[in-house]
């Protein structure tokens, strides 16, 4: 009976969704296609949507030694820096987040729930307001223009949320499993490593993905803290195109594609865990 209104409803909804998706993705896709075009083709009017003569020249240029001629930044180096920062701080956040999350989930201490809630609130105070104080602080302790400094900073920023996700998921794991492990002869650490963590894998993966993506794409703090060219990250590299070659979109497109690639891979392979882990954390907070 009310089959028709429902079909109509879903059709409308899908259409609206499609329009929004196209609106958002079109520029991205255009940039992606631009990375395969030549300088000449990009300058040409009327604009071609599909590359006429697809070429990987832009990618080759990013990975060649053009930077030595001062035209482009040293992209292999930028990518290496970003990877170093994202991977290292992810590992740090996972290790500390796991132990902290375990403590929040399992141990009794005064103010536990208040602090756990506070971890989430602390996320609200990040961002622009912290830029200057952070810069002052990092300069004072000699960690400005340092990859290690950025690793520590990202770890500090990422830890509360990772801890919260991990704690929420550990709370769902029945205590008896651990008690059983302890009766079976496990120490607390063994019961955590052999029984609890394998069951918390989705949450650990979620926390890791979340942090990796955040660290990989962070721009504001990286841009004020990193000064020398050999310390820059991919996001700074992308931003630098604004000043460098306003017309050479093939480079911008190629660089943007390279920067987006790890993020897409992370989501593609981690999707399953990502939604599961976030939900697991969301049901009980």
């Amino acid at each position, binding site marked *: 009976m009310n089959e028709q209104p429902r079909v109509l409803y879903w059709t409308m909804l899908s259409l609206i969704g499609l329009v929004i998706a196209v609106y958002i993705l079109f520029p991205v896709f255009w940039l992606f296609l631009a990375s395969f075009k030549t300088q000449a083709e990009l300058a040409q009017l009327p604009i071609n949507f599909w590359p006429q003569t697809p070429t990987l020249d832009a990618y080759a240029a990013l990975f060649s030694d053009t930077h030595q001629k001062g035209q482009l930044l040293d992209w292999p180096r930028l990518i290496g820096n970003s990877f170093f920062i994202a991977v290292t701080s992810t590992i740090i956040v996972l290790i500390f987040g796991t132990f902290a999350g375990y403590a929040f989930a399992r141990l009794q201490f005064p103010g536990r729930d208040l602090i756990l809630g506070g971890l989430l609130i602390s996320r609200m105070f990040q961002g622009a307001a912290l830029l200057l104080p952070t810069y002052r602080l990092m300069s004072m302790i000699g960690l400005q223009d340092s990859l290690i400094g950025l690793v520590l900073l990202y770890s500090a920023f990422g830890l509360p949320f990772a801890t919260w996700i991990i704690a929420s998921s550990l709370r769902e794991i*029945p205590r008896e499993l651990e008690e*059983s492990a*302890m*009766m079976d002869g496990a120490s607390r650490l063994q019961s955590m490593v052999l029984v609890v963590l394998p069951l918390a894998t989705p949450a650990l993966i979620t926390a890791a993905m979340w942090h990796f993506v955040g660290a990989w794409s962070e721009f504001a703090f990286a841009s004020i803290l990193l000064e020398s060219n050999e310390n820059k990250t991919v996001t700074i590299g992308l931003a630098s195109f604004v000043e460098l070659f306003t017309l050479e979109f093939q480079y911008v497109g190629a660089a943007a594609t390279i920067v987006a690639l790890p993020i897409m891979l992370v989501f593609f392979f981690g999707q399953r865990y990502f939604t599961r882990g976030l939900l697991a954390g969301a049901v009980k907070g």
Partner: protein
Amino acid sequence: MGSVALKDIRKSYGAVEVLHGIDLDIADGEFTVLVGPSGCGKSTLLRSIAGLETISGGDIILDDTKINTLQPKERDIAMVFQNYALYPHMTVAKNMGFSLRLSKVDKDEIDRKVRAAAEILDLTPLLDRYPRQLSGGQRQRVAMGRAIVRDPKVFLFDEPLSNLDAKLRVQMRSEIKELHQRLKTTTIYVTHDQIEAMTMADKIVVMRGGHVEQIGSPLELYENPASVFVAGFIGSPSMNFVRASAGADGIEYADGHWLGRPAAAIAPGRAVIAGFRPEDMRLADTGLPARVALVEPTGAETQLVLRTGQDSLVMTTRERVTQKPGDLVHVVVSEGKLHCFDADTERSLAPGAAPA
């Protein structure tokens, strides 16, 4: 060996004391059942023995060694949890061998022990399955298997059958009992189900509100309950209780009808609570008059609900019952089956009954 002695065990959560000094001796090889209503502290006591809770006072002694402060893993005690607590990411074999792997037993030995335990519990075809692929009864058996491969001094069970359906429960009950007869390992078993307690126990410990109410064999508790609480808790259907008083020649119901003779003389005029079991009553030509309210045949027996004065009485009989609801009948209590309790303390007035 595995004898357990509890001396004045106390446990508080914050300011609230939930175990008020438990004394208990369990001989090596004994099957002891802790029974009592929900919330009376059975699990807390069991978990204290396991080392999962730290006690606030008293001593736990296992084979002459004080184990109060030992970690669970140092106590050589195995526990089967109510929800089984199987490791979901390990196969049945891995679950059962977990403790042996932790204690670095070599692989062949683990394999041999796991297979032997699986054999006993009929789990051999399931060794490669994961817990989620098992039925409730099978999970229960894996949980037991995990306990027996360790060959511990003591087994603890916390309401292990409460998640199973009635039929499976009866079956597992006898399996656990058989297992005990075979292994003869000291066992402490918690349940709130008095039938489980009666059928399985060598020794029953009835608990109430963090105290031990009475300790004894199933038949001792059935025949000589120390209090109204134990008398009402053990036996099904429950014992009938009525307000009565001691007369010159025995116990009289409120309306003056004679109920029976108490086990020990009671000063005439003293108010008591008289108790008698449904199965110790029979219909007679004279005796306490009562009106039939319900007749419930269950096959071998018939259960009658009777009303007299303010009281409602339940009786069971194996005879054919021709009476209908509304009929007037007379009931008597079988000789020597009348239990008398102090009207205020509710403790038994029988000779030798433990004082409150």
